[in-house]
């Protein structure tokens, strides 16, 4: 029997980048084939070609032994190929049913939508594969995990046999990821074949039947979990022996620079996203905040940096109460902020690098005299910083938009760390960056810590948190469920805490602790599952848009 899918010699060039360089890949029926590679390796590009979104410059695709012409997603769908994109392709104001049926609608007479029939099929699919969703919910009301289930249902609704999952675990807790793996197995048992994309080594070894590693657009090797181990895979992925562990001296602790007391912060929809959080960051330490994306980290950071008003509680920076201070005051007091979404908040993309380097200090001497900007000084200082922080740019007048992600982030780091700061608030500082930039930014953060600055590191990458932090606080549903020293903390334990499971003896907010007392790992999984189910069936409170 021929493989369900065979990619031969796929090549794709983008201006200045060879994204896919003669890639071969085969996928057998009922198999989970992991595609491993670091950010920018070309995984998404390859899958977009398979799904008809991009046209390859060279190469052929065979499906069930037949040569396939895939010019559009429609072709791919008709050939039984389905893809869950890295960034979900869901329409927030539509219901689950509408999102799933879009493009292959159930109809009554005359083009009128048959929502009932579609919802019925969605229920059937969701029962058959254990994918809990409520067809009538609006996407905007669903948690990330729920949205992902909708994406998978979209494929099954179209009766796809080849499923592509592009970095599906990036937004999930380890426990939610396990749930996803269970679903993936139930899919392969029914004869579906899966291409599973990730850059997380542990997952690959856990779930894949076969592993293909690509680097800089080239296949560097194929293996199976039995033959491989983490360090071997890492070396293949990065192309050299990497040691991502950060060497740091013992922390020399100073006085507290940031003190947060019973902080409550509401999100955009008026829900309490940060619910009574207290912690302190001391000079000379890295406090890591671990947690799955969407548990209040964004709102917490925004409150700490003055971008979001607080609902209750207090924040102190050094000796000053900054609970109601504006961003400028907080900046001037010596707080640096590396924002979560660098392109949205941290940079003005169509401004020159030089202007971006003074984005929050432009009004101070020496960059301004009175009301007038001192362009020459700004350019000079910018040139210094570009070389000091190793920012790869043609010049300081180049627009930030034409820099790579890593260099954009370096612009922000250069701007923030060039000031005399006492506190660094770094939110997802390495998301989506290449290994070189990650190492560089980690180094800079540790350097700050060693020079006596307090660092608050918010990240959903558990590895990053574990490597950099001196202490780790875990946030779950707006509450800090536990704070533990990084030394001796195990990944499993933090993973469970991230899922809201508090073990015996741990201090946590009483409510959570009381509910979850003495939960073992096994039952925790069940709890999580149940919770997911109730979450999605919650009736929507928001008004329909039509």
């Amino acid at each position, binding site marked *: 029997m021929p493989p369900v899918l065979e990619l031969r010699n796929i090549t794709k060039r983008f201006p200045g980048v060879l994204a896919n360089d003669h890639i071969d890949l085969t996928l057998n029926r009922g198999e989970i084939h992991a595609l491993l590679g670091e950010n920018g390796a070309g995984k998404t590009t390859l899958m977009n070609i398979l799904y008809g979104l991009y046209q390859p410059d060279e190469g052929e695709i065979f499906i069930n032994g037949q040569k396939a012409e895939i010019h559009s997603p429609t072709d791919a769908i008709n050939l039984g190929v389905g893809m869950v*994109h890295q960034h979900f392709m869901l329409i927030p*104001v539509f219901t689950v049913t509408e999102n799933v*049926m879009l493009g292959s609608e159930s*109809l009554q007479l005359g083009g009128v939508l048959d929502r009932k029939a579609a919802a019925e099929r969605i229920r059937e699919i969701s029962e058959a594969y254990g994918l809990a969703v409520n067809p009538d919910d609006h996407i905007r009301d*669903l948690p990330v995990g729920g949205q992902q289930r909708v994406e998978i249902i979209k494929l099954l609704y179209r009766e796809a046999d080849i499923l592509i999952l592009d970095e599906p675990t990036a937004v999930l807790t380890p426990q939610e990821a396990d749930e996803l793996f269970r679903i993936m197995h139930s899919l392969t048992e029914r004869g579906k074949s899966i291409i599973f994309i990730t850059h997380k080594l542990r997952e690959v070894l856990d779930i894949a039947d076969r592993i293909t590693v690509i680097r800089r657009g080239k296949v560097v090797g194929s293996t199976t979990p039995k033959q491989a181990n983490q360090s071997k895979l890492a070396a293949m992925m990065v192309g050299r022996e990497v040691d991502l562990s950060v060497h740091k001296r013992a922390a020399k602790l100073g006085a507290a620079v940031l003190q947060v007391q019973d902080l409550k912060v509401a999100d955009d929809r008026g829900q*309490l996203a940060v619910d009574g959080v207290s912690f302190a960051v001391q000079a000379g330490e890295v406090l890591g905040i671990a947690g799955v994306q969407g548990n209040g980290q964004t709102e917490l950071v925004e409150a700490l940096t003055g971008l979001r008003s607080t609902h209750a509680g207090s924040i102190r920076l050094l000796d000053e109460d900054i609970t109601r201070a504006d961003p400028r005051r907080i900046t001037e007091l010596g707080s640096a902020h590396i924002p979560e979404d660098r392109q949205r908040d941290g940079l003005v993309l169509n401004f020159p690098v030089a202007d971006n380097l003074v984005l929050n200090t432009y009004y101070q001497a020496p960059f301004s005299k009175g009301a007038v900007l001192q362009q020459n000084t700004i350019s000079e200082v910018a040139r210094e910083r570009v070389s000091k922080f190793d920012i790869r740019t043609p010049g300081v007048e180049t627009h930030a938009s034409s820099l790579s992600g890593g260099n954009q982030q370096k612009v922000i780091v250069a701007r923030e760390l060039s000031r005399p700061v006492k506190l660094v608030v770094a939110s997802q500082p390495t998301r989506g960056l290449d290994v070189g930039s990650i190492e560089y930014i980690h180094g800079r953060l540790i350097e700050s810590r060693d020079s006596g600055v307090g660092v608050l590191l918010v990240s959903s990458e558990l590895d990053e948190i574990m490597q950099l932090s001196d202490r780790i606080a875990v946030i779950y549903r707006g509450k800090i469920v536990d704070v533990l020293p990084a030394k001796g903390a195990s990944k499993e334990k933090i993973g469970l805490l991230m899922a809201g499971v508090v073990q015996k003896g741990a201090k946590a907010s009483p409510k959570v602790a009381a509910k979850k007392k003495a939960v073992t790992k096994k039952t925790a999984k069940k709890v999580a599952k149940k919770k997911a189910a109730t979450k999605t069936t919650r009736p929507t409170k928001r008004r329909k848009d039509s």
Partner: protein
Amino acid sequence: MSTQASTIQSVAPQGTATRRIVMGLVFLGLAAAIWFLFANTTQADLVTTFTLNPGGSQFNFPNLGFTTLPVLHALASACALIGAFQLARGFGRSTNAVLGLVAALFIFAFLSWVASGTSLNLAGLLRATLIRAVPITLGALSGILCERAGVVNIAIEGMMLTSAMVAAIFGSLYGLWVGLLAGVLAGGLLAVVHAILSIKYKTDQIVSGTVINIFSIGITSFISAKFLASYRYLNNPGIFSDIQIPGLVDIPFLGPILFSHNIFFFGMVVFLVLLHFGLFFTRWGLRLRSVGEHPKAADTLGINVFRTRYMAVILGGMMAGFGGAYFTLGSVGRFDEVMTAGRGFIGLAAMIFGNWNPFGAFGAGLLFGFADMLAARLAILGVRVPSEFLLMAPYVATMIVLAGVVGRGQMPAADGQPYEKEGH
């Protein structure tokens, strides 16, 4: 990202408190206006008489007569009470409906005051309001078609203007129906230009709309000055006559107001219903809206974003063309330079006011239509305050309402963004 809201307690959403207070103050302000502007200037013994016959109906509906002052006081008190309640508790979700009610009370108070000591044909006013709402609503529907698919259309004005002229010329030469068809096609043709510029060349959509507006003003004035002024027979199409819907037109009071109009009014009603149904209940509408919300998602499901947008913009242009033909073939009977006089822009405002929903836009169209109607009639009514200030009222009201109620409306998420297909 959405949080797990189920277990998280809700804090009062930001903004609703200010909104509540603004609306409350608006209601109280209207109550005060009734008192000070109207009641204060009305003598106690004056009587208001409303005629409820628009004319042309066999049934003679009795006139509605009442002593003005007590009614004004009652209306003012009602507004004040509603305002007080709004300030204290708020009407929550039904605030918009209450706003409509208060607006209606205020308008009734205004009309009672205008007609105090004389009589006023209320039925005629209502009918005129509906008629004036026609081009505005059609403009808004045109905007909805385009923007629900993600293409901003500020060229409605220009499309209407060009269509009005083309309809007049072809109507004069080949008859009304050909004129109407030509007008619709002219709107569609300009829409093709808008579509090519903004979808194919990815020109900023507001720039492209501005191009069409300037072009339309130029070309219509040019042709009008060059040809229509000297060859009168090119600009004499006549107008569509009213159609009476048999049976319904005989309903007392409402019949003549609602069921005796020319095809533009009935066309508007049909398009209104069709568009609402089409957008929210058919495959066509689901796909069209998906393209306006998240074109990339639509693309990954095999929906042709470009084709859908072209289709929507061209249909929108034809809708504007239909609305433009109204000016020459449905109303005036000849083309005058810049005769649309900003109705296209008001239509755009009605679209936003109505939150990109056809019926919402129609409601806003009625409000603006009423203002438009008053502008034409106030002089005749002989009002005692400078009419200009009353005529400003709807514009001021729109601004206040935008500030207090609509604020950030639910515009389509990808509105105004050209779609780039990558990797080809």
